[in-house]
Each structure stands twice: as C-alpha cells, then as structure tokens.
C-alpha cells in the first residue's frame, strides 16, 4: 500500500468548505448532501464530514445505513456511498450502537471527538471536503475550525439561511463568527425560498421572502442563490435517494447545481 501520509490525512484534499448557519433547521445537512451530489455529478471526488454530534443527519440522507467503520494505519476509513468511491462520508452517526441513543456530551468531550474526526479520517484524494455543522457558534464550530487550520487551509464557509428575519437574525451572528475567526465567507444561500403548489402552481412564501439577498447586501457578502421548498426534494432526502438522478430536470436541481458551480469557481480561483 502506497499511502503517502506526509502532511496528514488532509494533505490530498484540495479544498475544504464549511457549511454553517446560526439557525437550526434551515437545511444545512440537506444542502451539504445536495451540493456534494451535484459536485460529484460534475465529476468531482467529494467527502462530507458531519460534525453535528447531537443530530447527525447525513447518513440517512445518503442512505448508507449503519455500516461498520474500519480503521487502517492512517486512521478511520470513511464510508463510501458507491463502489467508485466518488463520495466519502464520516459521521458520528456511524459510531453509535443505537441510532436512537442520545449523545449527551458537554463541550470539552465534543471538542475532543471533533479533533479526532478532523485529523484521523483517511480521506485520501478528494477535490472537495464539505463539513456539515450543527447550528450555533460554540464548541463544535471552534473545534472544527481550530483543528482544520492546524492541518490544512480552509477555503471558507457557505452560510445557509431561510428568508425570514428570525433566521437571518441568527445568521448575522454567524457572519460575525466568521469575521472574528478569519473564515472567508464564500457566500449566502437562501433555502426554502418559496413553495410552488404542485396542484395549481401558485407560489406561497411560507417562510417570508427576500431575507437572504438582503442579508448578503447588508453584510457585503456574495449571494449564491436560492433553493425553493420542494416536497420532492424533502421526500428524496428522507428516503436517502439521489435527487439529482431522480429529478435532473427540476428547477430545484438547477438552482442547486448553479450554486455548486459558483462555489467551485470561487474556491478554484480565490
């Protein structure tokens, strides 16, 4: 085995992007999954690191079930979603015996595990590593950033919001977190941006309208685009199906793909 581990397990990872929000339930995990699938669809090798220790959602979204996680000389072997190893995943979800078991840990223990996750997963060669985070600006976020910075440059973060003020209010604080920690903001994505009724095509702004774009203007950030509320996407995510394979012609995929391509351009040409 040739495994060249000079520089650590992130040495052959070209780009690292954090997916953040101040707010819970805006679609960080969903969009991390969809952006990963879109990047893979365009030929990239992608990894996802899920550091939401209390609510690890990604394993279900990628339908990987409860695989055993193996160790090799370099550390933990990530779980691959396909035989071609085009999409790799590491989540604490894999380490729990019982999927309903609560991870009731205080900050210091979470910090220690995240340190391990960042340095001890044998990612191998990746074009992009996406890091899905829980909501907030606390132990997990500080831990992942500190540990990533030790090993590798972090290209930056994408911030997810929904349109309403209750959401953008929290995301403003996350933007402050990014500025204070020197994390480049690659852009803001507005998720759940309107719902088109499948029966009559009337558009309803269930979670209000325009907040994402306003936030981008207010904070001088790039607006990457918006993704609509789509029951086909939420069902796909629930069932761990590849939305892009199933609905390649949907407006939702088009929106996600556009964001993925903008992101790629931005990290390849900093």
């Amino acid at each position, binding site marked *: 085995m040739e495994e060249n581990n000079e520089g650590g397990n992130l040495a052959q990872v070209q780009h690292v992007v954090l997916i953040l929000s*101040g*707010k*819970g*339930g*805006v679609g960080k*995990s969903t969009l991390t999954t969809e952006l990963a699938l879109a990047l893979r669809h365009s030929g990239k090798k992608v990894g996802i690191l899920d550091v939401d220790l*209390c*609510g690890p*959602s990604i394993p*279900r*979204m990628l339908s990987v079930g409860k695989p055993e996680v193996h160790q090799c000389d370099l550390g933990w072997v990530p779980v691959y979603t396909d035989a071609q190893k085009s999409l790799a995943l590491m989540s604490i979800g894999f380490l729990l015996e019982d999927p*309903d*078991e*609560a*991870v*009731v*840990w*205080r*900050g*210091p*223990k*979470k*910090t220690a595990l995240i340190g391990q996750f960042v340095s001890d997963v044998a990612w191998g060669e990746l074009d992009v590593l996406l890091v899905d985070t*829980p*909501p*907030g*600006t*606390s*132990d997990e*976020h*500080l831990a992942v950033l500190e540990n990533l910075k030790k090993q590798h440059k972090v290209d930056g973060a994408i911030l997810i919001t*929904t349109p*309403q*003020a*209750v959401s953008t*209010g*929290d995301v403003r*604080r*996350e*933007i*402050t*977190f990014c500025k204070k*920690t020197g994390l480049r903001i690659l852009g803001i994505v507005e998720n759940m941006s309107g*719902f088109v*009724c*499948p*029966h*009559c095509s*009337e558009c*309803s*702004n*269930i*979670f*209000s309208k325009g907040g994402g774009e306003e936030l981008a203007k207010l904070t001088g950030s790039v607006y990457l685009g918006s993704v609509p*509320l789509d*029951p086909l996407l*939420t069902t796909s*995510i*629930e*069932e761990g199906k590849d939305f892009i394979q199933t609905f390649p012609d949907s407006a939702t995929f088009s929106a996600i793909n556009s964001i993925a391509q903008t992101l790629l351009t931005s990290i390849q040409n900093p």
Partner: protein
Amino acid sequence: MADIPSDAPQHCPGTASEQAGKTSACQGCPNQNLCSSGATKAPDPAIEEIAEKMLTVKHKILVLSGKGGVGKSTFSAHLAHALASDATKEVALLDVDICGPSIPRIMGLEGEQVHQSGSGWSPVYVEDNLAVMSIGFLLSSPDDAVIWRGPKKNGMIKQFLRDVDWGELDYLIVDTPPGTSDEHLSIVQYLSSARIDGAVIITTPQEVSLQDVRKEIRFCQKVQLPIIGVVENMSGFVCPKCKNTSQIFPPTTGGAERMCEEMNLTLLGRVPLDPRIGKSCDEGKSFLTEVPDSPAAAAYHSIVQSIQAYCLSHVPREESAG
C-alpha cells in the same frame, strides 16, 4: 449533584470521592469533567439557591427538540402569550438559546435591555403579566455573536435562574436550543432541586426530525424529566389559492403519531404550516392575536389547554422528592 448521578456508569466512585472523575470507570461518563475538576466534591450552592428562588414559581415547562428549526421558539412564545391571555396568571419566558436567541424578536422586544436592581436582574415585560429573559437583551448589536464554549454558557444559564427577579409566577416556560448538550444538562442540573412539571417536545413530521427527537426523548428519560407530550409542527400546508394540502415535510415513517405510539407518549396536537405564523414572528406579534380564526391558532389553543390540564393535574405532594 447526587453522589451517584442517574447517568453515571457502573463502578462510579461517587461524585464526592477523591477519585471522582479519575477512575477508568469514569471514561465516557457525562459528568467526568465536572467530577475531575473537583466541583462535585462540594455541592454547587447555586442549585439550592435556585430551588429557593423557584419556590415562587408554580409550574415550570421546558420546550425541547433534538432538531433545529422545528418551531421551539415559535411555540414557546405562543404558549407564553396564550397562558398570559388570562390576566390573573403571571407568566415568564426564559430563552436559554445562548448562541441563537430568537425570543426577543419573536416577542417584539428587540433592542430592549435588562436592568439590575437590588433584587437582581429585572426581566423585560411584554405585558403586565408576561416577562421575558434572553441573552439577546445583553447584546448591544444584532451582529454580536456569542462565541462561548460550554462552561461559559452554563454560567449564564445559572445566572438566569438564580439572579433574575422573577417574582411570583404561575408558569415559567424555558425555550432551549436544539441538541442534547451543555444547555440541556445545565437546565436540568440547576433545576434538580426545584420541580420541573415536564417537557413539551416539538417535532416536524419527517424522519430526519424524528430521528433527532427520539434522542431528545431518550435524554429526558435518562435525566428523569417527565414528558408532557409531543407537538407536530409544520404538519401540512393548505394552498391559499386552490385549498389542496401538500405535505412539504412528509411523514414518511408515520410522523409524530407513530413515534408517540411506539414510545408511549401523548401527541398533544398538530400545527399546520401557515405563512402568517412566520410573518407574525418576524414582526414580533402574537399570531394568536393577529390571525385568531386560523386552523393553526385553533391547534395552538387546543395544545395549550392540554398542557395546562397536565400541569394542574400533576401537582406534587408537599414534600416533593425534587
């Protein structure tokens, strides 16, 4: 802290022991850091101080979810409004989401500041009988981020419980952040000598939420926190134009109803998605007053009644075990 906490592993040396936090049995115990710091050798005096403070609070309700963005703060705020609509009741809402304090905005109190007096911090009043406390009131700008690790967050929660001059209350509602971490452990720990009536668990219908919510339920069981019941939020959307219902967050595994059956819990009710709820929250108004005739408002009222009935029927004996 109890000498052998309920979540301690087998062979726990006891929190007051010289070996507390240091033996091999302590590895993985949620209390390990606290024990090895020596803090558990003497009981945290704050716990008794808080119990003393809470003697004037008749009912304490925690609003929890494992999942973010399911409507905890929205629900907490409207529960508070509904309970306070009875002018004879004194109600307070405590927001312990330190990183993402939404309550000030939802209650129309953005920009308000907290005052200190001889008897402690004064909460901010929305109505004469409805008081609110949140870290949001201690921040000077909407851009201020609270980038604190666990121990500092815990200290703030202790202060909220011990140093706020709540006065006599019929109901104290505590809104929490998502997860099962410092804030949740702290709230339960600091209220351990005061009686919590129970927790209301909020979820949305889809499995992605339920899988986190089951963990929260397990947490409640671990710390012996009674569960009043579960609210399924964002339960269907009725198109205002054609009136057809869409399941935007589909209950692919049976929704909260099946989860409640499986876990022997009460389903308190289902609240449909209504764009006017989000709008009210953004504007700091009570949806129950703004759109009183909506199906969502009716659902809220029914749920609140069930919660009140629970609190009134589960009054403890005078000598509560605590």
